[in-house]
């Protein structure tokens, strides 16, 4: 039997060592994936919602910073199961629905929500053209029953904090509720209530005023 030259032995040992290293790296990645970190998961969201959850009006992505964890969890799950964002006319909702499915499990939802809920609230800039927030205050009386005088929300009746939300987002959601684009899915009881309120509480021409008033609420 011929003896393998020394340099060949070196090459073989190096190859085995590299293979083991790559295998180890692969295993390490696998472990990292199971160790969920909200910040890493949020990377999928920050393209649209911004690094600090400030939102981007040009992408129709609302501000997330300042929203309570229970509401974020509920909305992510609703986008995932099609209760929200599955209406054919909900162009932006359909986009968010697909993105929500990136959170593959309840644990991933929990992790990303914990990260977002810990974001400090940020200032919002008025975007609606010439609204009259003071006039919107009168219409807000009906909303205050559930969402609170200051828009602080009430988790016990599934009414989220709405103070300091983007005015354009609030206005678009009220219109979606009115048209049945949001809140019309089967089994969406809270959405059905909101649809009724959106239709009764505010006339279409006063929606912008109401949205501007809500944006200015202290929370």
């Amino acid at each position: 039997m011929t003896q393998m030259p020394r340099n060949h032995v070196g090459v073989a040992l190096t190859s085995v060592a590299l293979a083991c290293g790559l295998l180890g790296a692969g295993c390490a990645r696998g472990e990292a994936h199971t160790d969920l970190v909200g910040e890493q998961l949020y990377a999928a969201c920050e393209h649209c919602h911004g690094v600090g959850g400030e939102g981007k009006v040009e992408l129709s992505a609302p501000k997330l910073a300042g929203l309570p964890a229970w509401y974020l969890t509920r909305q992510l799950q609703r986008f995932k199961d099609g209760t929200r964002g599955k209406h054919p006319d909900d162009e932006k909702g359909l986009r968010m629905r697909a993105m929500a499915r990136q959170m593959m499990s309840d644990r991933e939802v929990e992790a990303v929500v914990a990260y977002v809920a810990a974001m400090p609230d940020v200032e919002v800039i008025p975007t609606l053209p010439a609204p009259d927030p003071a006039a919107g205050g009168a219409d807000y009386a009906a909303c205050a029953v559930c969402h609170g005088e200051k828009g602080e929300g009430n988790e016990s009746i599934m009414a989220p904090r709405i103070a300091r939300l983007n005015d354009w987002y609030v206005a678009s959601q009220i219109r979606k509720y009115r048209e049945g684009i949001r809140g019309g899915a089967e089994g969406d009881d809270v959405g059905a209530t909101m649809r009724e309120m959106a239709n009764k509480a505010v006339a279409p021409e006063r929606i912008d005023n109401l949205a501007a008033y809500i944006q200015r609420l202290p929370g």
Partner: protein
Amino acid sequence: MISWLLPQASSFASTIDGLVLLIAVIVGFWLILAEVVLFGFIFKYRARDGIRGQYVSGEDRSQKTWVSYPHYAVVVFDIIIIVAALRVWNEVKVAAPPGEEQIRIIAQQWSWTFVHAGPDGKLDTPDDIRTVDDMYVQRDRVYTFELHARDVVHSFSVPAFRLKQDAIPGRAIHGWFRPTREGTFDIQCVEMCGVGHGLMAGRIHIGSAAQYAAWMTEFTNTAVAAHRIASSTPIADVAAHDHAGTAGGTR
């Protein structure tokens, strides 16, 4: 053979598989033969003590035949493949059978909206039914589809149908298919369309006539407004806009 890995669920799936197989057999045979010749020559003319290598210029006629004959073979088999491909193209894209029902497909980042013709078999009538990401069709019925894109370029692909068609904003693209097998199969977007491209999946449900009627009845009777279509909604406006040929305008 391809159907061992992926079911054939449309009338032209086997035709397309046949073409792919023909190309694979022709190219595969010549690839193996060329590699055998290459490695055979490498072995036959390997380095030997006392024999110097030669510089072959290719000017000798007998040497040139090793290049010219394969060239002739490439031309002949190219023609065979082109003829076969044109026959398939004609069947799938040109000689479409008369449609029995219409269906509208609207792609957007990152979902599919399907407008089913409903009981009357015609689009843009009050009985149209809209669904998101789930398409419902009847087996052995010829469907003509109308494909739209709401935002960027997408590509509608049903692997089990061997169907793939780009969707371009501002254009209504027409095609057809006839499902031949009952079941549920994947719909994919196969054109990079943004950060959520990989999440743009749908399902096509193929059922018997009775099953299909049951689906349509269920959607017609449902309380969910999303399935019903109004005269003008954002998604209906997409198709109207494309038909009007106002590409580049705002929606």
